[in-house]
């Protein structure tokens, strides 16, 4: 994958223009027309157009991917470009950010887009009693100022070089100010597609708007239909019988059936989605770094990739940063399965053998219990006896995750290193799944704060590399594998050369980026 230096674009903010141009050759043959039908999982009867509640693919693809826009957008190649913002500028301490907004944009109900809409939409997330998952992002903004009809200035609590990236979060959609209620009821955004019909948990239909600022760059279909198919087999059947043009997350066990069908192709994307075994680093015996090191060497990572992912993924080091990140430490020395080394660390910790409980449920991911059994078998050779406790999938995230000393979890990954680290590894963060406190990880926590406000790319790279190494060596998490996104697409549908790897289905933007042959 080619990478364009993102930092340069970030601070100067000429992103939109440059990238639109660089994206053009790929799309030269794209043409307008046709109807895209996609079968997606992750739909629920309680879905709505309220972006604060979005968490799964169906609504992300429907809202941010089609009907709504955000300020910025992560392009398929991982670079950041403007969506409703044209460019942006930071003060030297990365504390004050000024966004210039696109002119001449209208919402689907005819209202003109401007600075007020941005401010009102962001404020939705910090309202009294708000339950938005993006609240931590918006909370860091201490002041939002309208500096012009099409300009907004935001002052942050602390400098954050990644701030424009955070504005591309799928929760941070722009609604028309003063009409937010109505916009949430009916799905009124500024996106390429106008919502026609939306039945929560069933389907969503949207038609292309006539005149859009992305004309010529994106949005090739006349109409899109997203069909909620949560059942794996039903999704595969719909694809095999040609009733949909694409599906997400194919069933790996029956992948051969799809491969044998000449009408379609499999799209596989290496991404940041990873499966984790977090241990609470403030609970014995995991409070001893040598025990953690022993556990890191007691898992056969390759075996897990082969047997759990059926080869559709790659072996992980114990850091959550992946290929969709800018500062991914790809050449870090690989931690391997080494029972002798594990025994050695166990001795260092003062144990000859160790008995521990591992809480497992397939709520974490398909095959999590099998993965626990593989871990159990491989750790035995190192003198570690893992006792697997099967937990009910119901309530797994409330009763087991963050509570049991050793369990199984997953992360879909984040677009920036800081976002990932501050979500899951920063001392005091609510989702710090390993309870890694400051005493245990001082260097890591210092680097995290330092790197956040650093605007120099090389220095940031150095810091993030070091953090990945620390997490890998001493952290309380074992990350045996990174799982690919595996999708099926009909040959009637064309896709660009570079596919986004931040989220499933080309960053959930297939309605924008794909076209009919």
């Amino acid at each position, binding site marked *: 994958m080619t990478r364009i230096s993102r930092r340069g674009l970030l601070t100067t903010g000429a992103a939109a223009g440059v990238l639109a141009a660089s994206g053009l050759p790929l799309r030269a043959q794209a043409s307008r027309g046709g109807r895209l039908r996609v*079968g997606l999982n992750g739909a*629920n*009867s*309680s879905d*709505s157009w*309220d972006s*604060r*509640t979005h*968490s799964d693919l169906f609504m992300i693809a429907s809202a941010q991917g089609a009907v709504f826009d955000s300020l910025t957008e992560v392009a398929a190649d991982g670079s950041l470009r403007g969506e409703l913002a044209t460019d942006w500028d930071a003060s030297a301490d990365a504390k004050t950010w000024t966004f210039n907004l696109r002119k001449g944009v209208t919402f689907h109900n005819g209202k003109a887009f401007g600075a007020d809409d941005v401010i009102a939409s962001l404020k939705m997330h910090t*309202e009294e*009693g*708000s*339950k*938005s*998952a993006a609240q931590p992002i918006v909370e860091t903004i201490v002041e939002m100022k309208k500096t012009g009809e099409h300009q907004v200035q935001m002052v942050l609590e602390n400098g954050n070089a990644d701030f424009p990236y955070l504005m591309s979060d799928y929760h941070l959609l722009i609604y028309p100010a003063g009409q*937010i*209620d109505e916009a*949430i*009821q009916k799905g009124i955004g500024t996106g390429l597609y106008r919502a026609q*019909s939306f*039945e929560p*948990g*069933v*389907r969503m239909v949207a038609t292309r708007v006539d005149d859009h600022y992305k004309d010529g760059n994106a949005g090739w279909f006349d109409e899109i239909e997203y*069909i*909620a*198919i*949560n*059942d794996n*087999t*039903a999704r595969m*059947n*719909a694809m*095999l*019988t*040609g*009733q*949909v043009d694409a599906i997400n997350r194919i069933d790996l066990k029956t992948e051969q059936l799809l491969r044998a069908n000449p009408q379609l192709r499999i799209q596989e994307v290496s991404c940041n989605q990873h499966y984790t075994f977090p241990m609470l680093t403030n609970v014995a015996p995991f409070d001893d770094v040598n025990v953690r090191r022993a556990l890191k060497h007691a898992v056969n990572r390759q075996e897990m990739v082969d047997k759990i992912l059926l080869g559709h993924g790659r072996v992980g080091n114990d850091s959550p940063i992946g290929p969709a990140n800018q500062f991914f430490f790809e050449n870090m020395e690989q931690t391997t399965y080494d029972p002798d080394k594990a025994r050695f660390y166990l001795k260092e910790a003062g144990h000859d053998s160790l008995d521990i409980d591992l809480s497992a449920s397939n709520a974490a991911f398909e095959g999590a219990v099998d993965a626990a059994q593989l871990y159990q078998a491989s750790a035995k050779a190192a003198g570690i006896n893992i006792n697997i406790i099967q937990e*009910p999938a*119901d*309530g797994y*995230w*409330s*009763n087991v*995750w963050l509570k049991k000393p050793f369990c199984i*979890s997953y992360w879909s990954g984040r677009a920036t290193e800081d976002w990932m680290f501050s979500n899951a590894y920063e001392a005091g963060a*609510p*989702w710090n799944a390993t309870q890694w406190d400051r005493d245990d990880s001082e260097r890591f926590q210092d680097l995290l704060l330092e790197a956040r406000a650093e605007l120099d790319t090389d220095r940031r790279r150095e810091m993030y590399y070091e953090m990945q190494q620390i997490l890998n060596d001493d952290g309380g998490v074992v990350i045996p594998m990174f799982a690919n996104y595996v999708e099926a697409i009909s040959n009637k549908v064309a896709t660009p050369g570079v596919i986004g790897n931040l989220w499933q289905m080309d960053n959930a933007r297939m309605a924008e980026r794909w076209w009919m042959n």
Partner: protein
Amino acid sequence: MIIAQRLALGVLTLIVVSMVIFGAVSMLPGDFAEAILGQGATPQAVAAIRRDLGLDEPAILRYFSWLGDTLRGDLGVSYAQMNFQSNMGGGDNLRTVASQIAPRFANTMFLAGVTACIAVPFAVGLGILAALFRNSAFDKAANVSTLSSISSPEFFLAYILILFLAVLNPVLPSLSNIYEGMTLSERLEKTLLPALTLTLVVTAHMMRMTRAAIINLLASPYIEMARLKGVSPMRVIVRHALPNALAPIINVVALNLAYLITGVVVVEVVFVYPGIGQLFVDSVKNRDIPVVQACCLIFAAAYILLNLTADILSILSNPRLRHPK
């Protein structure tokens, strides 16, 4: 009189059912706040949702306020919608549970209706033929095939039908995602595969009951009389035996119709049919008690009403009961 008495008992049953369901859902681990927030549940967010929805009140209080509203005919608003509203900070355009369930229930009734139109005549006809040719090869074949289809899990039958009718010979769509604005013929085409699957599931029960009820009567003196006067075997069964065998058959048909309304979640999932079962399962997963309760009331009411109808029809089909001395 009987009807009024039965209806009153039915209402009582519904209340008991609602209590049991409420208790059962309350006993499940986790509540709506935790379920809806999933991995993203921070203690503050959970507390905020509980406060907004009144989930912090004792279960008994919540149950009786729900019961009171329901008795007034108001099924309330789902937690998902209330949560949505409190996020919005106002707004009255809420979708009530009733308006949420109505389209799904209509779809379920449509599927049940189509299935009944196929399955009931088919099963009863097959039962009559099996009784007529009892112990013949035809009878045995009919028994073996219907019994094996009822013994297979529904999803297995569904996949077999998909394999033969959608994948190998693409005559019917495997996706039954019907929606508003479809023409009736489109709807029927999309509904046919799930309806056929359900037909396979319910046929055996009705067919075997028809056959057994008729054969039971064949030893009666009046049947012998009919035979002796030279009436053809087919006529003996249809004119003389069947009317007297109707009561048990109607009862079995009613039970199966109720099953078609309440027990088709698996078929809905396999064919992606937007019926009430899917909504019900989603709601249980989310611990969205108002929706769960409403669905359960509908399910229980379906059983009660269909049973009542069956009893009335049995009475009507029996002259001795119709004209009591």
